[in-house]
C-alpha cells in the first residue's frame, strides 16, 4: 500500500530514507528545520569503515555497519543514476596504525574476528607497510590492513541524495525553523513555526542530534546527545596518502579533490558548532606522528559538526510500539554516512512490514524506557 510519509530532518539519514521510500513508490515529504545536509552530514569525513570503527568485536552495531558497507556499491550507483550527480566513492582500504609491540596482541584478536566477518585483514609492518603507505612515519610499529573499507566525499554524496530525491518527486521543504508533532496515533500531523500544518500516514524521525526534543511528545526516553567533531583539511598534492589511516587518536583520509582530511575531536560542548584553536591543535599534535611531513603544514580549512550520540552507542531504529505510524531513525553518532543505506532499507522494510523488528532488537527505540 502506498503511503504518505513525512520525514523529519534532511541529513544523510532523512534523505536516504526518503530516497528509498520514494523508490518503493511512497509519497514522501522531507521537512527540514534549516538546510538539507547543513548539520553533521555535511561535516563528515565520509569513511565507510565498520571494521576500523569497531575495535572491540562484532556486535549488533558492527553487523549493521557491515550490512551497510555491502549495500554501498549498488546504493551509491543508484544515487548517482537518480541524481545525475557524480561523487567520489573510493575503495581505498584502510590501515590502522599502532606504535608499540604491545599493540600486536590486540591486533591478532581483531584480525581474527574481522576475517571471520568478511574481511581479508592482515597485519603489515616494515618494508611492506612502507610500500603500501610510503609517507607513513617509520616508527609506526605495524598496521592492520583492511582492504574492504571505502570512503566517499560526504558533502557531494548528500547533495546527490537531495537532488535524486527531488528528481524522483520527493517534496523537500526547508527553513521550517521549528516543527511540532501534534498528532501521531490516528494520523500524522506536524505544525511548522509559520502555522502551516502537514499531514500524512507515517512519520520517520531523522532529526539527528535534536531527536531528544521529541521525548515528551512520544513519552519515551530518547537519550541522544550532541558530540561535536572538529575536523580539518590540508592541501595534499605533495603528500600522497593512499589509504584511510586510523590511529587511537583519529584518522587521515585523502580525497580525490587533492585534500587530506584529518579528524576528528569528540567534544562535549552542547549544540555549539564553533571550531576552537585547541581542538584543531590537538589534531595537529598527533597527526604528525603518523605523517611527520604534516608538522610543517597548516590546514587550510577547518570545520565542525554535531554527531548524534546515544547513551549506549547504538542508534534508535524502528517503529514505536504505541503507534507504528512513527518510525525512529536517529543517533548514528560516528557512523551515519556508513549506516545510511542499511538504515534506509530497514526503515522502508518496517514501513512496508517486510522485516520483523526482531532482527534489529538491539536498536529498539524504546529500550531506554518511558517517561
Amino acid at each position, binding site marked *: 500500500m502506498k503511503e504518505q510519509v513525512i520525514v523529519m530532518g534532511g541529513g544523510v539519514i532523512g534523505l536516504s530514507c526518503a530516497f528509498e521510500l520514494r523508490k518503493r513508490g511512497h509519497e514522501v515529504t522531507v521537512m527540514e528545520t534549516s538546510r538539507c545536509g547543513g548539520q553533521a552530514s555535511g561535516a563528515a569525513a565520509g569513511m565507510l569503515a565498520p571494521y576500523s570503527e569497531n575495535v572491540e568485536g562484532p556486535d549488533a552495531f558492527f553487523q549493521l555497519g557491515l550490512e551497510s558497507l555491502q549495500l554501498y556499491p549498488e546504493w551509491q550507483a543508484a544515487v548517482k543514476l537518480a541524481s545525475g550527480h557524480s561523487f567520489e566513492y573510493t575503495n581505498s582500504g584502510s590501515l590502522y596504525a599502532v606504535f608499540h609491540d604491545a599493540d*600486536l596482541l590486540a591486533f591478532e584478536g581483531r584480525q581474527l574476528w574481522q576475517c571471520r566477518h568478511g574481511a581479508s585483514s592482515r597485519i603489515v609492518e616494515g618494508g611492506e607497510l612502507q610500500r603500501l603507505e610510503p609517507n607513513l612515519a617509520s616508527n609506526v610499529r605495524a598496521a592492520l590492513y583492511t582492504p574492504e573499507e571505502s570512503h566517499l566525499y560526504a558533502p557531494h554524496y548528500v547533495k546527490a541524495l537531495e537532488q535524486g530525491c527531488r528528481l524522483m518527486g520527493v517534496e523537500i521543504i526547508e527553513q521550517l525553523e521549528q516543527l511540532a508533532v501534534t498528532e501521531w496515533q490516528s494520523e500524522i500531523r506536524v505544525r511548522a513555526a509559520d502555522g502551516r500544518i502537514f499531514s500524512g500516514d507515517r512519520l520517520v524521525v531523522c532529526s539527528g542530534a535534536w531527536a531528544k526534543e521529541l521525548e515528551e511528545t512520544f513519552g519515551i526516553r530518547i537519550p541522544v546527545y550532541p558530540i561535536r567533531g572538529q575536523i580539518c583539511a590540508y592541501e595534499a598534492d605533495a603528500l600522497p596518502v593512499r589509504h584511510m589511516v586510523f590511529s587511537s587518536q583519529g584518522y587521515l583520509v585523502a580525497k580525490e579533490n587533492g585534500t587530506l582530511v584529518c579528524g576528528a575531536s*569528540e567534544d*562535549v560542548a552542547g549544540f555549539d558548532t564553533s571550531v576552537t584553536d585547541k581542538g584543531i591543535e*590537538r589534531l595537529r599534535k598527533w597527526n604528525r606522528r603518523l605523517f611527520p611531513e604534516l608538522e610543517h603544514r597548516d590546514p587550510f580549512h577547518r570545520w565542525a559538526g554535531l554527531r548524534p550520540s546515544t547513551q549506549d*552507542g547504538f542508534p534508535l531504529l524502528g517503529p514505536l510500539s504505541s503507534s507504528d505510524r512513527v518510525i525512529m531513525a536517529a543517533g548514528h553518532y560516528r557512523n551515519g554516512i556508513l549506516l545510511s543505506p542499511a538504515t534506509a532499507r530497514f526503515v522502508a522494510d518496517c514501513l512496508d512490514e517486510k522485516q520483523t523488528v526482531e532482527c534489529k532488537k538491539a536498536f529498539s527505540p524504546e529500550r531506554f524506557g518511558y517517561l
Partner: protein
Amino acid sequence: MRDLFRIGNQELSSRFFIGTGLFPNPHVQKEAIKASGAQVLTFAIRRINLESARDDSILQHVQDEAYTYLPNTSGARTADEAVRIARLARASGLSDWIKVEISANERTLLPDPIETLKATEILVKEGFTVLPYITDDPIMCKRLEEAGAAAVMPGAAPIGTGLGILNPYHLGLIVEEASVPIIVDAGLGTVSDAAQAMELGVSAVLMNTPVAKAKDPVWMAGAMRLAIEAGRLAYLSGRMEKKKYASASSGYEAFKLN
C-alpha cells in the same frame, strides 16, 4: 565513617577503580566516571598519545578532577615490553603508578605469572608504585607482595567476560594472607559480583566493561558504587552464621506475658 586505605603514599576513600575504555561516547564516559565516585582511573598506555597526554583522545575528557592515574601495560607479552611501556608512561609525566598486565594468550588474556613477577621486581626497583594484575592464585599473590607490589590485583574471571568471581575460596585466602591491599580486577559482571568481592574483604575493585557496556552506564556506575559501599559495610559488620534449620526471628519467649 572514615574508612580509608592506602596505596603507596596515597590515601584513598573510594574503593572503586574505574577503567576509561569502551564507553559509547565522552559525554557518557565523563558522567559515568563522576557517578562512580572513583579517585583512580586506569587506561592502556599503548592507546595514549604519550607525547601530549593532556591532548589524548580519552584523557582530555577527565582532566578537571584530581584523579590518580593508573596506566596499565595491557598488550605486553613479556616483562621487557611491560617495563618499556611503563617507563614511557612515567617519562610522559602521567603517573608513577603502574598496573602490570602481561598476557600471553589472545583468547583468554590471562596473565603470565612468571613475566608479571619479573616485571614487578624490575619496576619496584625503579621506584614505581606497582600494582600487578594476576590470576587468583594465593601463593602467586603473596610472591608479588614480597616482590614489593604496593597492592595486588587478582582477577575474578578473564577480562571482559563478566562471569563474576569464579573462585571465592581463593580470593578469601588471598585476602587472609595479604598485608598489602587486594584489589579485584577483571571479570566482574554486575553489582552482586562487586558486593560479593567486598564481602570477601578485598580493599577495592577495578571495573570497566560492566559499566561501559551497560545500557545506561551512568546509572550502572552509581549502582556499582553503592554495591561496593554496601559490600564493604557488610564486611566490616560481620555476617551472621549460617544455620541449617529455621529459627523465628522473634522467638516464642518474646511474646510471653509476665
